[in-house]
């Protein structure tokens, strides 16, 4: 019975219907002093006045994706530079030099240079004729090794400094003409074609050059005239 009373009192207390609650409320309704109210309210006002750290601007939202895209582009560029470009580049420096030599712009001298080297013009012309019938890149391995080395040595200076200062340009043209003559004299050629070229030189009045070529021909093919009839110029 006592427990039942206690439970009933407790339930009444929880529903705020107990004598104890009434008496407690009569104890006094103390309230915070006015200074305390002012202090708290000014604290709240101050907190509102001091702005919170600004929320990120709208463009900041794009910073991460833009940075990611930039990184992807950068990485892609580096991969292209490292992997793809070497495959596109010439295989060897010698091949690059040969490419340079074959391009007409690097070989053809300026007009002024041609004028200053008029005396060697026929030789140059012959050289051009020879170069048109000269062996192609695929034929080069057939040349003797020393001849290839000489040709490479002759070609490389012209690729390093194709057009230097103007006074040097005339000398460069002359030397190229001489190189063409030398190439004419040393390159392995068909004997019949060579003799035809020599005959052409002779007929055009360049007897000295024709004699020189014939001399080289004899050196190259010492037994040729023992089985063939020599040309008129050789007689």
């Amino acid at each position, binding site marked *: 019975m006592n427990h039942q009373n206690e439970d009933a009192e407790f339930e009444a207390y929880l529903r705020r219907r107990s004598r104890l609650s009434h008496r407690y409320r009569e104890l006094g309704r103390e309230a915070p002093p006015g200074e305390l109210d002012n202090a708290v309210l000014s604290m709240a*006002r101050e907190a509102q006045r001091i702005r919170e750290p600004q929320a990120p601007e709208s463009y900041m939202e794009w910073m991460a994706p833009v940075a990611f895209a930039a990184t992807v582009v950068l990485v892609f560029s580096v991969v292209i530079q490292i992997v793809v470009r070497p495959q596109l580049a010439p295989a060897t420096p010698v091949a690059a030099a040969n490419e340079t030599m074959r391009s007409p712009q690097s070989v053809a001298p300026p007009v002024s240079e041609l004028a200053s080297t008029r005396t060697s013009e026929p030789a140059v012309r012959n050289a051009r004729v020879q170069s048109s019938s000269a062996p192609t890149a695929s034929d080069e391995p057939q040349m003797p090794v020393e001849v290839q080395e000489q040709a490479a040595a002759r070609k490389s200076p012209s690729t390093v400094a194709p057009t230097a200062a103007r006074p040097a340009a005339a000398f460069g043209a002359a030397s190229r003409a001489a190189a063409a003559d030398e190439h004419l004299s040393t390159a392995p050629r068909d004997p019949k074609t060579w003799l035809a070229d020599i005959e052409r030189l002779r007929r055009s009045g360049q007897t000295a050059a024709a004699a020189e070529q014939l001399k080289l021909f004899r050196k190259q093919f010492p037994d040729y005239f023992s089985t063939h009839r020599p040309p008129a110029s050789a007689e």
Partner: protein
Amino acid sequence: MDDAPAARSPFNGIAVARTLPAMQIADDDATLMLRYRDGDLQAFESLYQRHRGALYRYLLRQCRDRDAAADLFQDVWGRLISNRKRYEARARFTTYLFHIAHNCCIDYFRRRSAHRVSMTDAVEDREELLASPGHERPDAELSRLQLERAFRAALAGLPPEQREVFLLHEEAGLNLDEIAYVTRVGMETAKSRLRYALAKLRSALKDERAWRDDTR
């Protein structure tokens, strides 16, 4: 009640060991707090007016020192203000407010020694006697004041845990679930503490004339 569905803590920035049982979430106070969170200062003033007295009395009767109660009062509201941006209305606002107050009281009692508190009790009792000299009052008024003093003394004599659950019910209007949540104990523990508190208070008051004459 401990197996009630776990709710996310509304007390951002405050360590909470238990989860709040399911309860009515949206109330007017929570709406005001949300408005204050979004920059409405008038909402805060309304909220403050509603709860200032109850909170102050809770703190005053818990620590029984006016200066300390004033400091704690500012501390509670300061914490509420500084955490306003993280406030979410997931529980009654009163539960939120008194949970902060409970934490502030715990910190206060840790800082203060028991000796300091007992001295404060003596000062408060003396102030009460000076404020209500019995020889200037009629008998009925005298017995009422004696009852009031006995009530205060009985309340002060309760163990802190029992006093707290009593004050949370009387001042904050929290039910047992909410009291259990705020004080981080099980609901049965809170109920038991409240029962003990009520029994001790009744026992302390039963000899007072005003209490005996009260027929309510």
